[in-house]
């Protein structure tokens, strides 16, 4: 049985696809057989972030409609043997996603994978609700910014009431907060909500904090999940997130402004 992880947020542009790409790659690099699915039917983008856009032949909707087998549609990552990508369709309308269809695909994937990462589209429409319907764990991607925090809280309400686990009265989905685009400098100046502020408002378990970083755009420019850029702060932060998710105790980093000079070096340990 695979563990199904939804990466969700409500608000768009906060880093869901970046996070899905990073977490799935991270899990695969830790030796876990992982599949990542793009649920953004009509606006597929995960393929581009993963750098496999020219290898897409069949997509998620083809599989649901029985026009292709799962094996035909899954794209094997060229950097990591344990990672497979199921792209969203580009053209069809989003009504082609059905609860039954998605359920069947996830069930099939469950037989061969340890983790299935569902990259949710923004909003609370069908694609988003289906991405989280079967989830065991939810990574709620949030920016330290009012509209994103509000939308995340809204998603928490939906996770708690509209998922299969909620409908069946099973143990609730495990919810994790992932704070992205964090700028310790601005927090220090009182210009940005701090990690503690957001945690207090949402009362969620903190999975990690990803600092605002140039490396994220650089990574997406080249179609490389940012976690592979292990020299970058964002890449390292995602690495920590994956290890933390897998149960390792990893202290949070990049919460403070980077100290410079001798003083900084002394205290950085």
């Amino acid at each position: 049985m695979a563990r199904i992880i939804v990466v969700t947020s409500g608000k768009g542009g906060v880093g869901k696809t970046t996070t899905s790409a990073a977490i799935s790659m991270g899990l695969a690099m830790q030796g876990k057989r992982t599949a990542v699915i793009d649920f953004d039917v009509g606006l597929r983008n995960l393929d581009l972030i993963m750098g496999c856009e020219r290898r897409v032949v069949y997509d998620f909707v083809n599989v649901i409609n029985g026009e292709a087998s799962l094996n035909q549609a899954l794209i094997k990552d060229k950097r990591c043997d344990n990672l497979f990508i199921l792209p969203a369709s580009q053209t069809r309308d989003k009504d082609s996603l059905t609860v039954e269809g998605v359920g069947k695909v996830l069930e099939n994937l469950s037989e061969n994978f340890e983790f299935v990462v569902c990259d949710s589209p923004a909003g609370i429409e069908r694609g988003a609700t289906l991405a989280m319907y079967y989830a065991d764990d939810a990574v709620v991607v949030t920016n330290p910014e009012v509209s994103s925090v509000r939308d995340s809280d809204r998603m928490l309400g939906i996770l708690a009431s509209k998922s299969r686990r909620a409908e069946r009265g099973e143990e609730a989905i495990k919810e994790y907060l992932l704070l992205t685009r964090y700028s310790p400098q601005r927090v220090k100046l009182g210009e940005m909500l701090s990690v503690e502020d957001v945690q207090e408002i949402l009362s969620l378990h903190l999975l990690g904090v990803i600092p605002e970083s140039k490396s994220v755009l650089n990574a997406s420019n080249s179609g490389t999940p940012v976690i592979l850029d292990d020299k970058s702060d964002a890449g390292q932060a995602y690495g920590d997130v994956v290890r933390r998710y897998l149960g390792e105790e990893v202290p949070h980093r990049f919460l403070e402004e980077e100290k410079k000079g001798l003083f900084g070096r002394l205290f950085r340990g």
Partner: protein
Amino acid sequence: MGFLDYFRSTRPTSAALAKERLQILIAHERAQRGKPDYLPRLQQELLEVIRKYVSVDDDAISVTMEQDDNREILGVNIILPDDGEQGRRSGQD
């Protein structure tokens, strides 16, 4: 003096403002969560009916929905004005 005060002023930072606004908003939105969509309309229409007989404020009515294991309770609480001048309520002390 005014100049220095500007720097010393204890105006809340924009982050503090954001936090406060979010806490109020989210508390409100969580309270609404899980309730049927028709509650606000029901409340409005009940208010209109009551106003045919008694003059009450907008906030004099609250409609709540509670749930326990085997039943749902719709609670309607209307606060009538305490001066008993309204025709139907003239018997009130």
